[in-house]
Structure formats: C-alpha cells, structure tokens
C-alpha cells in the first residue's frame, strides 16, 4: 500500500445554479488530496477549500457512502461512477488517480433526469416506474408461513441478483439512448422469478414499460453500456427476461 498524502488535482466540474439556469463547466484546483480518500471525500475537501475562498461549494448527492443506497452518482472522465468496474463513486478511491491529473466531473445526463443543481439530478422518473407496478400486491397482516411455498435456492439466488439494484441511475447515464431498461428489468425479473410475483407478472411488465416510455427514456438497442456501468453488475439477462415477458403479453401468451 503506497499512500500519497498531498496530490494536487485539476477539476472541471459542471456548475448549474438551479433547474432552469444555464450550466457550464468550471475549473478548480484541489490540494492535499490523499490517495486513501474516497472520491466524494475529495469533493468534500474541495468544498471546504472553496468555502474558505468564499466560492459557492459544489452540490452533490450522497448518503450511505458505502455503495448501497444509490444516492451518489456522477460522470467521472466520461464514465458513470468513474473508471472502476462494479463501484459506486462513493466507493471509488483517489488512489486510482495521480498527482497532477485533470478530472472531468458531470451530472447524469438524460432528458428524464433534469439537473437540480450542479451534480444533483432529479430521479423521480424512477420512482414513478416503480409505482407503476414494481411491487407484489399484498396487505400487511397474517400471511401463510414463510416456508409454505418452497423456492429453489437457484431461483432465490437469481432473484437476489436482480434485487441487488440500488436505483442510482448509472445505467441511464451510460446508455447512449438514455434508456431505463436495466433498472426496470431488474425489478421485473426479481418478481417474475418468484412464485409470489406470478399473479401480476403480465400486468407488471406492461405497466412498468409503459411508464418508462412515458417518462421520456430512450429505447434499448442492446448496446450493453448499462451493464458495464452498473455498480452492482446487474447483467443483460434482466433485459432479455423483460423483453421476453413483454413479447408474451403482446402475443397474448401471458395474461
């Protein structure tokens, strides 16, 4: 482990005052960056330095800072969540960069994700997709015993693979079409694999896909950038599953 304590970096960061304001890239220098810092801690440090210079700090979303809540996200040197595979930007460490590097930092770019301020975007469109059918209709109350319906280990594991999505939006940011297919498909596959999800399987896929289109996300043309950028490595099998369910509904094979 070789720790460097005092890197100096040049940053080019998207600054935008509010939703309707025009934005532009601005240049900053941040000093005393340690290689042990996370990318967001580097931004914290920049902000501390900016506040002391009376420059408005850069707004960005974050919460858990351990790669599970999905709050953080920005495009680093052209890549959603930065250069490291399977990693959210809060878990990206500065040892991936060198003293003197220039780093370009932008918000997610998509019509359906308007910028609120600087690096903060509005991801409500995801919420509405989830609301359209991303659930199993069941009331709170007495339920059959948890072991009443056996679920094979493999099926449970696959459902878990899909359920691991953190809803960060990197898939949309990485997709040249700004499609939300990976996000939407992950929910559809999780429930589509489980016995509890069968009764609403057909209506779920139609409602969620319809909502996705309504929100202004692009179409999936099988490019695969989404899966490559996904910090949880949700794979393209999910999209295949969704498309197949959708086809079945359209051809009346599934009701």
């Amino acid at each position: 482990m070789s720790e460097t304590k005092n890197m100096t970096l040049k940053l080019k960061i998207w600054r935008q005052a509010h939703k309707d304001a025009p934005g532009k890239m601005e240049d900053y220098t941040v000093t005393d960056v340690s290689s042990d810092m996370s990318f967001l801690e580097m931004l914290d440090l920049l902000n501390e330095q900016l506040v002391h210079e009376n420059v408005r700090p850069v707004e960005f979303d974050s919460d858990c800072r351990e790669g599970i809540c999905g709050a953080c996200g920005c495009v680093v040197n052209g890549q959603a969540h930065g250069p490291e595979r399977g990693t959210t930007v809060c878990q990206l460490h500065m040892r991936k960069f060198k003293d003197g590097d220039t780093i370009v930092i932008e918000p997610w770019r998509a019509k359906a994700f308007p910028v609120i301020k600087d690096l903060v975007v509005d991801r409500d469109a995801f919420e509405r997709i989830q609301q359209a059918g991303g659930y199993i209709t069941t009331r709170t109350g007495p339920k059959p015993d948890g072991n009443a319906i056996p679920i094979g280990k493999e099926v449970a594991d696959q459902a878990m693979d899909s359920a691991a999505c953190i809803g960060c939006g990197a898939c949309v940011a990485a997709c040249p079409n700004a499609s939300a297919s990976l996000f939407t498909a992950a929910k559809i596959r999780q429930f589509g694999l489980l016995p509890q999800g069968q009764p609403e399987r057909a209506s779920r896929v139609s409602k969620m896909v319809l909502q996705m289109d309504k929100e202004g996300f692009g179409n999936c043309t099988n490019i695969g950038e989404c899966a490559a950028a996904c910090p949880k490595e949700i794979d393209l099998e999910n999209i295949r599953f969704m498309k197949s369910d959708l086809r079945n509904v359209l051809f009346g094979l599934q009701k």
Partner: protein
Amino acid sequence: MTIELNPNIPEGPIDKKWEDYLGHIKLVNPANKRKYKIIVVGTGLAGASAAASFAEMGYQVTSFCVQDSARRAHSIAAQGGINAAKNYQNDGDSVYRLFYDTVKGGDYRSREANVHRLAEVSRNIIDQCVAQGVPFAREYGGELANRSFGGAQVSRTFYARGQTGQQLLLGAYSALMKMVDAGKVDLKVRQEMLDLVVKDGRAQGIITRNLETGEIEKHAGDAVVLCTGGYGRVYFLSTNAFNSNATAAWRCHRRGALFANPCYTQIHPTCIPVAGEHQSKLTLMSESLRNDGRVWVPKKKEDIKKHPNEIPEADRDYYLERKYPSFGNLVPRDVASRNAKEVCDEGRGVGETGRAVYLDFRDAIKRDGLQTVKDKYGNLFHMYQKITDENPYEVPMKIYPAVHYTMGGLWVDYNLMTTIPGLFAGGEANFSDHGANRLGASALMQGLSDGYFVLPYTLGNYLASQGVQPGGGDTSAPEFEQTEKEVKDRIQKLVDQGKKGSRTVLEIYRDLGHIMWNQVGMARNETGLKDAIQKIQKLREEFHNSVKFLGSDKEMNKHLELAGRVEDFLELGELMARDALERKESCGGHFREESQTDEGEAKRIDDQFSHVSAWEYTGENKEPVLHKEPLTFENVSLTQRSYK
C-alpha cells in the same frame, strides 16, 4: 410541567398482554378512517412499513424523507440479518427464548412487555416479507436458510446475502409505492422536518423545509409518527449514513417529548479503522468475521510498526482468547470493543494511527482452505481490499470499533406514543426494546415490528379512544403560523451567522466528534464527562459565533442543512454526557470506569439504576430535568453477564 411517566403496560401474563390488548382496543369507524390524516416522517424500515400499513387500512397518509427517494433510508445499509423466533432449525428456539436473549443482551435495562411483543411478532415479519417477494437466502430444498449471529445459541437469523437491510427495505418500499400508486400515500421526498406543531396539547402537524427549493411548508395531521432513525452521527464518524441525523427527534424533544437513555450507544467492534482527518464515515465489516478470524496485537510495543507476518507466534497477544477462554473471539460487541480500546491505549495498537488491532485469517485459511474462506467472506474481503488497498488473504485485516447504533431515543409507552399525545416514535428513533445494548440482527426486526404490526393498531386505538376529531389537514390555526415563524427565524439567524463566520460546519462538527468519541465513547468516567459537558457548551458558543457557510436558504443548500443538524447535535451531545454522568453504573454499551468488577468487566448496580432515564427539556442552556421509569422484571431473573 408535571410529567407522569406511565408505560401503559396491559395487565395479565406476559404472553397474553399483546393478544389481550388487540382484543380490546377501540377501532376507528371504517367510514371515518379516510378522514384521518397521518403524518409519517422517515421512510426506513419502520417508517415505510408503517406508512404503507396505515394507507392499506384506509387512512390518508403523508410520508416524508430527506433523501431523493424513499428507498435510500439508512436501513438499507444493514448487512447481517433479521431475527425471528421461527424455530425452523428445530434447535430449541421459541418466543420466550428470543425474549429472554433480548432482555439479557440488553443487560436488563429494557421493558419486558415491549420485548415480549417484539419476539411474538417477529414470526409474522418473515411471512410478510416472503409474501412481498423479498429474496431471502434459501436451502437447496427450497426452505428458508438461517444462520447463527452475534453469539446466539440458536440459528434464528434470516438473511439475503450480506444485504438483508436492503432487501427488507425494498420490500417495505415497494409496499409504500403500491399505496402511492393507489393515491393513498402522498410521498414527499427531499423534505426535512424541522419542527412539531402542538395544538391543544396534541401533536397536530409538522413544519418542513423543502430541500430542493428551500421553501418552508406547514403540514397538518391527526397524528404524527416519527421514524427518523438514531443519533450515531453525533460522533461525526460512525457507520451511519451521511444524512442520518437527530433533528426531527430533537426538535420534538424541545417541544416536550422526553428523551430516554441518550447515553446508550452501541460501538461495533469490527469496522475499518480511521485513515485520516478527511474521513467522512466509517465502514462496518460484518461481525460474522469473528467466527473465523483471530484478534491480536503485538505483545511488545516495539513491534507495532513491524509487518504483522514477521511477528512470530510467541510475540502475538490473542488477547480475547487469553482473557475469555470460553468465548474467545466471540465475546459480545461491547466487550470486544472495549478490549480493543484497552490494548490500543496501552500503546500496542497497530496501523498508521495506532488505533487498530489485527483480525487474522491465517489459521482459518490453513485449517479450512482458501476456497472455504473465500466462499464465506469473499464479499467482505473484497470490500475491505477496495477501501484499504490491502489483501486480507495475505495480510491480517486491521479493524477498530466504531459507533453503529443508538439504543436511546424518544421515550415511548407500550403504544409507542411519546409524552406528547398524538406523537408516536418507531424504529431506532424510540428507546423501546434494546435496553442498554442491542443484539445483532435485532434492529431490522424492531423496525418492521413497529411499522407493520404495532403502530397500525396502537395509533388507531389512540384516535378512537381519545375521541380525536379528524382535522382535515387544516394548517390555518395560529399554532402553525407561530411554529413556522420560529423555524424561519432560526434559519435566518443561522444563514446570517454563516455569512460572517470563519470556521466551516465540518470543522466544528469534527471537534464535537472528537469530544464525544474520546470522552462519551467506549469508556466513560466522571472527570471526563464533566469536562466534556463544558467543552460541548463552549463549542456550541463557538458554533453560534463563528460557523461559516455560504449560500442562502432559498435554494438547495446542503451546508445549511448540515449546519442545522450540527446545531442540534451540539445540544444532544451534552445531554448524552449528562445522562452518562448520572448513570454511575456500567451496563451494556455504557461503561463507567468507576463501576467494574475486579476482573475489569462491566458492573451493573441494580438497586440504584433499574430504571429508564427520561429527560425533559427545559430551555436553551438550562439544565434538563431527569424523570425515572422504574423497570421491573417478573419473567427473567437478573444475572451479571460473564464471558470468562
């Protein structure tokens, strides 16, 4: 103010209390339900499950969260699992055993009736979550898998890989989204609750700040449910999320809700050590690592800078195995944490800062093979390597304790109602079930128990039995104007100060963290606590005279948000120190150096401290008043914990 602390525990034998209660509560007339409006603050396990359940029952619900989505609440980060007395493993588990373990684990400082109810409904939680499509781990035959956790003698922990909190939260979130879709829940994201509106002696609304626009909003409801989590972030560094805070609970405290047992905090022994001043949060490594890893430090101080692999066996001190031969590395969280601190205080800590101990898998790899260790802990090792850039398969991990959970919180009775009628608290925000120490995999259980299976009934009972008339969401009463004005004035003052200050919010916040961690942390003593109180008071003054941040309150401004939260932490921190000072015994996570056995273990003083300490706010810079709720134990007998 005369305050009567009535826990309102139903009569009858412990295993019949809840059943009996449910049989006799008053029900809200179904036609009336939709006229009632319930405000739920927070969308973690407790908040999301409560909001969804209320809406299904027919109430109008408004739900608030500070994040941009309800799915991001900090419950999402829980790794290990959720306990339930299902006895699927046929290893002798039962409701009573889970109840007993929880009371004992809490070092006999919790309320029996509440804990028993928790153990009872634990079984429903699993069924509920399975029905929602939560992908729990399964056996090959298709049944639910369990593991043993935190030294429990039975395997009652259900899990979904290392992401149990995430999956349970997404389950509750999907239930909530279903009700948003049905038009029964009005979900307001990026909203922070800044005050409680009390009218005619009842909680009837809240004041929030829209974090996107800065606008101050008034919201009225017939009851307010606070599920806003714990206050671990008072230590600055903790495993809590960046936005976790105590503001909503604290401002309710200022309005008259008593705050119970603030000194009970849980320090988790296996976290990745602090790397430097820049650090913004700490990362927990699941406690399961202690099943196979061996904890040690060098015997000699001279060796601390040596490469661990070059330190021969004879020069290593496996101090947990040495001191606790029968439990070894599996002693409870508080014991493991305190011992790590002790060896570091002796100057035998390792790593750059000297505040770390080794957790070594060398022997496990030798015994079980690399692949077995990889299968069990691969995810955790990967995470460790990502953060520290060291390979734990080859070099022992370095770990150190970190603040993880707070057992204290708003005082609530059996109904989970605070001392303000109509204000309820669920999940980590209340003090209810864990006593002085929480067992592993019990936080998720409590959050969902409160939200799905307790609050929906007790709150209805409140509305029906107190004859609460539906208010229709009207915010025109002068109490709303007045509270809103106070909130606005407070923000204005803060913003004005921010313009002329010299120290950033983070700089002051870090100072508070240092005081709390060093003097109100793992081990506490009278001198240190008294000194801490003075230091915090001084720091609070410094905050009010020299805090600096930019921007206005009429826009998204995360520095302003943080400033407001730190302002509250600066008051809460002092109360924690006071509570710790007052409780002259050691119990659970609270260790008073003056109260230990000859062997250096925590010593309870039951005849003086078998009570809940509930603090009343009396005004800024005024001494709070202590009220006591006596704890009686009729179903377990008190013993001193021993892990020798």
